């Protein structure tokens, strides 16, 4: 049995390449997502100083608030990996608890983003205010949409596990959703630095 799959608690994949096809597909998808978010971040960098007569980033950003949101998302990666660890140790109940905690933290992050967007709009920064605002809302909005999709996937796995629908290799879907969730986290690590902290 290959060490890779032994390490993740799943059965040995029978593929001609010896590489787990499902995981390969997920990593390929995440590689393409790098391009997607890279393009949006590039656009933001090109337009971040084109604010026109609208508010600038210094006028609207609330760094302490966003820092707490970042902390929440970082901690959700911890709960996610603890969920995977639980199911690998044969403890589906603990897995469901950790997955639910991850979904809750994800929802908290999305709630914070909605609050932030609402505040920005009240301060006069809308999607159409300036090239800066468009780039900002599109970038962070797409990230928030990814987090929301991740929350739905997490709750889906919890529901499947609760109804005994995960099958014999129950660690596999948790691992795949986990990869997606951690990717969303690393994208935010970049966004938090590039968009919020770098002047």
């Amino acid at each position, binding site marked *: 049995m*290959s*060490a*890779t799959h032994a*390490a993740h608690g799943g059965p040995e994949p029978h593929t*001609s*390449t*010896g*590489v787990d096809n499902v995981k*390969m597909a997920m*990593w*390929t998808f*995440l*590689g*393409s*997502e*790098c*391009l997607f*978010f*890279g*393009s949006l971040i*590039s656009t933001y960098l*090109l*337009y971040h100083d*084109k*604010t*026109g*007569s*609208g508010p600038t980033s210094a006028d609207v950003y609330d*760094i*302490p608030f966003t*820092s707490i949101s*970042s*902390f929440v998302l*970082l*901690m959700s*990666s*911890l709960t996610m*990996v*603890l969920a995977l*660890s639980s199911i690998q140790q044969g403890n589906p109940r603990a897995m469901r608890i950790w997955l639910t905690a991850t979904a809750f933290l994800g929802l908290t992050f999305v709630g914070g983003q909605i609050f932030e967007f609402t505040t920005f709009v009240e301060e006069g920064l809308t999607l*159409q*205010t*300036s*090239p*800066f605002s*468009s780039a900002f809302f599109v970038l962070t909005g797409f990230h928030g949409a990814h987090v929301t999709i991740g929350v739905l996937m997490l709750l889906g796995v919890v529901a499947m596990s609760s109804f005994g629908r995960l099958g014999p290799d129950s660690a596999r879907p948790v691992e795949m959703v*986990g*990869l997606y969730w*951690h*990717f969303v*986290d*690393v994208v935010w*690590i*970049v966004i*938090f*630095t*590039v968009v919020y*902290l*770098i*002047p």
Partner: protein
Amino acid sequence: MSSPEVHHEEGNHPGPAQYVRIAVILFAITVIEVAIYYIEPLQDVLVPMLIVFSLLKFVLVVLWFMHLRFDTRVFTWVFVSGIVLTFSVFAVVLLTFFLQGGAAPSPPGLGG
């Protein structure tokens, strides 16, 4: 066909305690990032420091939480290819704008 190279054996797979340690490090780095943002004397070196800290957090999550450190190198190459392509696209965009006169043009209908 030979199996792809695997970095670590099963015995080295991290447990919950190690995951918590990584999370504490990530939290500490985030606190440092936010702290240096407010420290006036560090403003000259703020950008390189933030990039280094951000890169460190990125690598920690990808290697430990996404288990890339323990998986076959094929996945690493696939993911790194995406990142390299991303920087290539950004370089091409920057070059295009540079050849057009430096500044990014405003999209139609937007101020700036």
